[in-house]
């Protein structure tokens, strides 16, 4: 039987073994320091959840639920929330204009509330979307939206930001620009809207470099910019802009922890897409793998399965088509912040 010592066996003294193991350990340390586990960017020490904008997600969830609940007169509900709930209910009943007014009012009372802001934006989004779909269906020449929808939500949010400058209001305005480019997908509208959005988010990140919603928003902006857009030299973005922002998001998320699995998977999937768009299919697949391991959501798994079927040389074309489809999926807008707390 093999295993018996013979002349071919290398003689290993204990010293050699120890030195060998030490060398490997040192190498491992070097590797960890150089590339880390996941090749993610470093996160500042002492980072708090509130700095990252990820504090009290459960609280936000609660508030969102109360917003959706039928209008009852709860004590302890703050007036802004109550007003917002009324407004939402009114919109659902079909009294769009009044409902939006109430929501606006609620928002100006609590401009930094992400739940109210998101509800307002989503309400406007769906109203505009329905209106535009109607117009197309009826093939009328009425191309203009009704006045209470025409310049919204950008106009209101711009005003809000001027009156109450903060990272939340700037974020909402930036996302409103993305809403715009989702509803009007012509390249000539997408490009300046995306530029506007990125500028606003960069403003936020200049003073709050670890604010995750802004990072995620900017990363998605870069990711969904169609590759075929030709930017003037001065305005072109760095090729790895998307992956940098999204990788930082993921790194922060991992440091803070406690994120719902679906959110983790969504982030990982987006990061994989960013790497794929930058021509790094190996990294992309690794991140899609991680996304797959993080969540049991069937829609997400289905989209990951699709990605694994792509060969290297067709990846860019297929990814562009997939990203475009995702952007124009108006049922589940990309800018719906509720993914954070759902």
């Amino acid at each position, binding site marked *: 039987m093999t295993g018996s010592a013979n002349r071919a066996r290398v003689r290993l003294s204990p010293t050699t073994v120890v030195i060998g193991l030490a060398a490997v350990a040192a190498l491992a340390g070097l590797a960890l320091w150089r590339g880390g586990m996941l090749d993610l960017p470093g996160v500042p020490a002492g980072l708090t959840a509130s700095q990252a904008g990820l504090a009290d997600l459960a609280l936000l969830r609660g508030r969102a639920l109360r917003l959706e609940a039928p209008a009852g007169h709860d004590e302890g509900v703050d007036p802004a929330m109550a007003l917002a709930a009324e407004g939402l209910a009114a919109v659902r009943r079909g009294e769009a204009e009044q409902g939006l007014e109430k929501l606006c009012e609620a928002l100006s009372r609590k401009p930094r509330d992400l739940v109210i802001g998101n509800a307002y934006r989503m309400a406007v989004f769906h109203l505009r979307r329905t209106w535009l779909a109607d117009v197309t269906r009826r093939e009328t020449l009425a191309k203009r939206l009704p006045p209470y929808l025409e310049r919204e939500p950008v106009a209101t949010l711009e005003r809000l930001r001027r009156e109450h400058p903060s990272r939340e209001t700037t974020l909402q305005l930036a996302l409103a620009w993305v809403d715009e480019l989702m509803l009007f997908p012509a*390249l*000539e509208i997408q*490009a300046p809207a995306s530029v506007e959005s990125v500028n606003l988010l960069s403003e936020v990140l200049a003073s709050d470099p670890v604010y995750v919603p802004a990072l995620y928003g900017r990363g998605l902006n870069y990711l969904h910019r169609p590759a075929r*857009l*030709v*930017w*003037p030299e001065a305005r072109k973005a760095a090729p790895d802009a998307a992956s940098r922002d999204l990788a930082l998001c993921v790194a922060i998320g991992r440091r803070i922890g406690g994120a719902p699995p679906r959110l983790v998977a969504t982030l990982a999937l987006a990061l994989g897409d960013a790497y794929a768009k*930058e021509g790094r299919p190996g990294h992309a697949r690794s991140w899609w793998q991680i996304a797959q391991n993080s969540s049991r959501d069937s829609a997400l798994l289905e989209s990951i399965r699709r990605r694994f079927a792509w*060969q290297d*040389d067709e990846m860019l074309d297929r990814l562009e088509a997939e990203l475009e489809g995702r952007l124009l999926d108006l049922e589940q807008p990309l800018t719906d912040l509720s993914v954070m707390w759902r």
Partner: protein
Amino acid sequence: MHAPLKRTLVMLALLATGWAWLTPPDGARLDPGVRFEEIGARAGCRHLHTLVELSPRFANIMPWLSSVGAAVAGVDFDGDGLTDLYCTSSGRDVPNRLFRNRGDGSFDEVAARAGVACGNRQGACMHAVFGDVDNDGDLDLYVVKWAEENQFFINRGDGTFRDATAEAGVGYWGYGNAATFVDYDRDGLLDLLVGNYFADSLPDPRTGRMARSNLWDPLTTRVMHSTFTHADNGGRTLLYRGIGGGRFEEVAREVGLRFRGWTLAVGAADLNNDGWPDLYLANDFGPDELYFNTGATEWPPRFRRVVDTTAHPGIGDDWWKGMNVDFGDVDGNGYLDLYVTNILARRYKTDEGNMLWLNVADPVSPGGRRFWNAAEASGVHDGGWGWGAKFLDANNDGLLDIFALNGFVNGDVNHTYWFALQEMVTQTRNNAADAADWPPMADRDLSGYERSRLFVQLPPDPAPRRNGSGTRPPRFAEVAARAGIDDLDNGRGVAVIDFDDDGALDLYVANQGATSLLYHNRLERVSPGRRWLGLRLEGRPDLRREVGGRMLASTAGAVGARVELDAGGRTQVREVSGGSGYASQSEPRLHFGLGRGGRPERLRVRWPSGRVQSFEGPALEACLGTYARLVEGASLERGEPQVAGRGVAP
């Protein structure tokens, strides 16, 4: 030992067998499935091109300098639905010719009557291109010349033209060889891109100041290119932006076209599918220029030059001789590819060759597209000393083929100028700028007597990968001689036309210093039953659309409109061209081959105004075998079927 060696050889044989079994079939023995018959004399559209003759101070290389100028444009100038032909002459006092298609297989020469004979009183005509500048439904004409103001004619609509050069402001005096109409800002008014070869002014050796360079009365013989590989002392590029009322303003420098290459051909097409036409300038003695249009991201639009420094050479970064550019989607990935002709001479120069730039996705290049030269892999790189070349579906099988002209100077075959040329190129100074330094050509031959090339595309492998930027390029077989194209003239411009409306594309070749040829496509004889569909687009400049703060509209000729036809599991892409390629303009109507039993499934039209129209079902199928007509915003109209008596008798 023998046994192991024997066994290894058997294994190698097995490997070779498997490899060979999977090797895609070679087209060398292929039956071309297409046949052309030269009928120029019978049809009465033969034109003898006359050479330009410059100052005797250039006598030593006069054959070289006078080797350009035979251009042709195949368009319907009188609106009767039949394609006519306009040919240039470059000799002093020799008029250009306009052949009007009578519809019965013969032509009338009417240049003088129409007022477009020109005549080379001072300079020499080099190129001609038609476009509907005033949007009145008929084609106007721009003639590019050396040492004489370029001329612009407005079509009166009754078969005659009037000279409108002065009011248009496009009478540039220089040495142009290329022009194309394009609507680069999509405002519904045609713009005009002009590429020039020699510089229009040079330093006067006596005073040192810049003075007009007149090759008939030169101040100096130092008029040639600075180097053979990176020459940047050519003529400047002009972009005339249409501003309405038949007037233009020159904006080349503002939009970023600043390079002074020795431009031989220009073309415009949307290469990254963003709806905005991009530009390609094929330059001799140096890098070609590829510009992407930034219209989607900035206003007013500008052009951003794209240079691929990673390949050897990469697009826009070559040191070769670009002589032509044409656009077509050969590999079916939905993006237009380019064919640029160049020089390849067996025994003398085999490091270059024609280029087939396949358009594939790329993560970092501007516009998300990269181009790789698949010419050698595809079998289309040996075109000889190339000139005009076009993509066309010659055998109506649904795959784009390539027709490429060639031949430089026919001379005494026992005395070639190649050795002298190579010697000049390999000198350390590589300085050939002074024509007087060039060895005399006398009657030496320089890549003369070359046969044109017809590269027929072979059907792809049985299991093609769809929708991928795959690395397997399409393959072609060269069949010109077997298809009946075997002239040894030096072709320059080629117009791809269907003069008899039978759905089989014919070729009109303008030969340098020789008679032109009309190759009639006898497809029905060799490959009967191949179906086709034609399309004539008419834009509505009045139907403007507001998009992102811009007012977009289509020109009346719908230049830049993109059409996609789904048939038989493949998508064919065409774009309405304002004339691209060396000394060539093909007819503007679009042609799709469908193969045997092919059915058109879906037709998508994207107008320059941004409007999208889609057709399928019976309305589309009814147009089979005709040139359908589509006016922007209206419905598809079936064309007239081939009328008995029309076309050439068999």
